[in-house]
């Protein structure tokens, strides 16, 4: 009996254990072989498993491993589950994951934590696969938390820098807030249905066993978890900071895979969300708001990775919008294409940073197109893809999202309009990036400029593959492939004919963004600076990311610490409880001193005491007689 799913999951774990435990003793070459070989192997096994899935009549593959916790007749089991949805995810995760592993070989060369890096990366892959393949929400949650851990470790990979360590912590804790919601959602599901297995949950939802109110509750609570992991408002704050990690990590975890877990979760439990238009509306609103908000911030960021980070937040917002309007398959589609082009963009940015010896500030780049041509070309392709230029991948997926936002039953004009503006902004900020980094004249410091070099083959090769995928990925008809599982929403009557005009409109938006970017940032005149000066307040707000971090610090963290320190510790613990205790103790000491003073050695005083005792005794008994 073969257990392909288990094998897929365990291969990276093996890599983690080998590199984690023996790493420093293995030597770079062996670390590389283990660290990259096992993910690739996992990808191959995954391909085999998907073929097995397709060879069957579409029935999901299930591998039950063991019972985690038995309770009478019920139990919480650890089981892996492969259907078409998880198949898509597994392929993306192992595929893109493997590519990024390979890329990392060149990127991390010479880092003293080389083995540790690959151990963490493998660990991440293990948890991500567990997340994707878990049959029950519990297993998914294990993976969910595990990828959070890996993310925490990798963001803080260069832990000597307190800011980087703090970024890791921030990511973990922000995610924890979401996890609290996730846990609650899970609890509600278990309390209501007695199971956490997602296929059973969907089936129960389809059979009407789940009341609509409960479905809404579950949907919203689980979505709170998703906002954490997928960096939606209001829990998006960690993702930009997460760029402190090595760039391949940003590509793998904070762009292509982990952050899409929230989207996957919602899609996985589509049955629940289909029952609850209210929950879906929440998703749609939060998604489109996040998309718009992040896109505006991305416009003014000067750190190349921060731009990409906000872009990721924005694109995730698009996916959530798709989920919110019921187009789960489309969301997954965008997830896949996004994985391709965003990985490509990040790795390209990594290549730029690598070329510039660690420089990340767009203001000190420029003119790189000639110096690192492969990076430039692949980056440009991916930029075009994310901007939504046909026939690249992003065009197809984004177009469908806008389409369902406009025409889907749960769509609406407002959702569509904000989405459209955001699509325009996307194009604008991405081409801004392209121009500032590659096309404008060089603003590099001379000693940096002197050392610019194209990245090694292992890196550029990966870039090329990803660029190809970004270009052609749109032709993989993911929504159609998933339709059996995730049916697309019905189109509102009367709007069916708008599809073609909409597509043209989307292209126009992308091109408009391109033109605007060229106008603002392409020439020597720098109209962008003038614009920024004219809208100084807005610019400042955007540069400071709407002051959300400061808001959280001022309204949540600091009051919390204040209450804990000033009220609970000083007043309740020390003043009240210990004060009471010390008060009683000094009362005892005081009365002890008083009593000792009674015993003054004077015989007659003792006699008086006796007399008092006698008298009192007689008086006491007298009235009772």
């Amino acid at each position: 009996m073969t257990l392909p799913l288990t094998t897929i999951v365990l291969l990276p774990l093996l890599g983690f254990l080998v590199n984690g435990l023996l790493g420093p003793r293995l030597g770079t070459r062996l670390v590389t072989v283990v660290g990259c070989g096992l993910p690739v192997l996992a990808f191959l096994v995954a391909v085999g498993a998907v073929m097995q899935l397709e060879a069957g009549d579409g029935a999901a593959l299930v591998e039950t491993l063991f019972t985690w916790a038995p309770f009478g007749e019920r139990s919480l089991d650890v089981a892996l589950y492969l259907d078409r949805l998880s198949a898509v995810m597994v392929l993306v995760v192992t595929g893109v994951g493997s590519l990024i592993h390979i890329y990392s070989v060149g990127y991390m060369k010479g880092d003293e934590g080389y083995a540790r890096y690959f151990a963490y990366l493998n660990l991440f892959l293990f948890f991500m696969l567990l997340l994707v393949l878990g049959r029950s929400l519990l297993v998914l949650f294990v993976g969910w938390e595990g990828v959070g851990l890996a993310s925490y470790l990798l963001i803080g990979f260069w832990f000597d820098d307190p800011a980087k360590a703090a970024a890791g912590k921030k990511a973990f804790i922000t995610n924890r807030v979401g996890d609290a919601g996730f846990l609650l959602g899970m609890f509600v599901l278990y309390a209501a249905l007695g199971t956490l297995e997602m296929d059973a949950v969907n089936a129960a939802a389809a059979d009407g066993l789940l009341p609509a109110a409960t479905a809404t509750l579950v949907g919203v609570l689980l979505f709170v978890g998703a906002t954490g992991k997928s960096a939606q408002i209001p829990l998006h704050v960690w993702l930009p900071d997460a760029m402190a990690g090595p760039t391949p990590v940003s590509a793998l975890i904070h762009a292509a895979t982990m952050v899409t877990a929230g989207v996957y979760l919602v899609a996985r439990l589509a049955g629940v969300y289909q029952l609850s238009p209210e929950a879906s509306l929440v998703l749609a609103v939060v998604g489109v708001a996040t998309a718009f908000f992040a896109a505006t911030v991305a416009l003014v960021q000067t750190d190349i990775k921060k731009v990409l980070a906000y872009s990721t937040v924005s694109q995730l917002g698009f996916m959530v919008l798709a989920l919110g309007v019921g187009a789960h398959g489309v969301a997954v589609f965008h997830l896949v294409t996004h994985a391709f082009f965003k990985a490509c963009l990040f790795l390209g940015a990594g290549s730029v940073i690598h070329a510039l010896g660690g420089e990340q500030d767009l203001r000190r780049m420029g003119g790189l197109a000639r110096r690192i041509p492969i990076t430039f070309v692949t980056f440009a392709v991916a930029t075009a893809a994310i901007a939504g230029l046909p026939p690249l991948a992003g065009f197809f997926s984004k177009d469908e999202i806008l389409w369902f936002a406009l025409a889907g039953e749960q769509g609406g004009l407002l959702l569509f309009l904000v989405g459209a503006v955001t699509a325009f902004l996307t194009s604008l900020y991405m081409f801004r990036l392209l121009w500032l980094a590659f096309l404008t004249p060089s603003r590099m410091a001379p000693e940096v400029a002197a050392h610019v070099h194209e990245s090694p083959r292992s890196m550029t090769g990966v870039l090329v593959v990803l660029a190809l995928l970004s270009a052609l990925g749109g032709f993989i008809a993911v929504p159609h492939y998933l339709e059996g599982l995730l049916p697309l929403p019905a189109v509102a009557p009367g709007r069916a004919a708008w599809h073609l005009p909409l597509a043209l409109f989307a292209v126009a938006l992308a091109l408009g963004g391109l033109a605007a970017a060229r106008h603002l940032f392409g020439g020597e005149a720098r109209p962008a600076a003038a614009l920024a000066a004219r809208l100084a307040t807005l610019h400042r707000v955007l540069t400071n990311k709407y002051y959300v971090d400061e808001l959280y610090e001022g309204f949540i963290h600091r009051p919390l610490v204040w209450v804990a320190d000033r009220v609970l510790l000083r007043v309740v613990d020390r003043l009240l409880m210990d004060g009471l205790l010390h008060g009683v103790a000094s009362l005892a000491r005081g009365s002890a001193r008083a009593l000792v003073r009674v015993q003054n050695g004077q015989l007659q005083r003792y006699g008086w005491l006796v007399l008092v005792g006698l008298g009192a005794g007689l008086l006491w008994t007298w009235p009772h007689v």
Partner: protein
Amino acid sequence: MADTGMLLALAALLFTIGLVGILVRRNLLVMLMFLELMLNGVLLSLAIFTAHAGSAAGAVLIFLAFVVAAAEVAIAVPLVVLLARRRRSLDPGAYMDLRG
């Protein structure tokens, strides 16, 4: 019977005077005398009741009590002497070394 009541009252009075005397007098020997007075009051009441009840045991007890009183004095006086030899004082207030 009235006599008995009077005598009993006397006994109680003697007992009380003895006790109060111990408490208020500032001389150890006088205090010992008041202690005897207390006992005498008790003995008086005991004699009355013994006579009243015709109890042999009561009579025995009276004699026992005499012996006890004598023994107490026999021990107490040397103690007072011991103390007085050290401090030349019969005031109980002079002997307050033990306290606290």
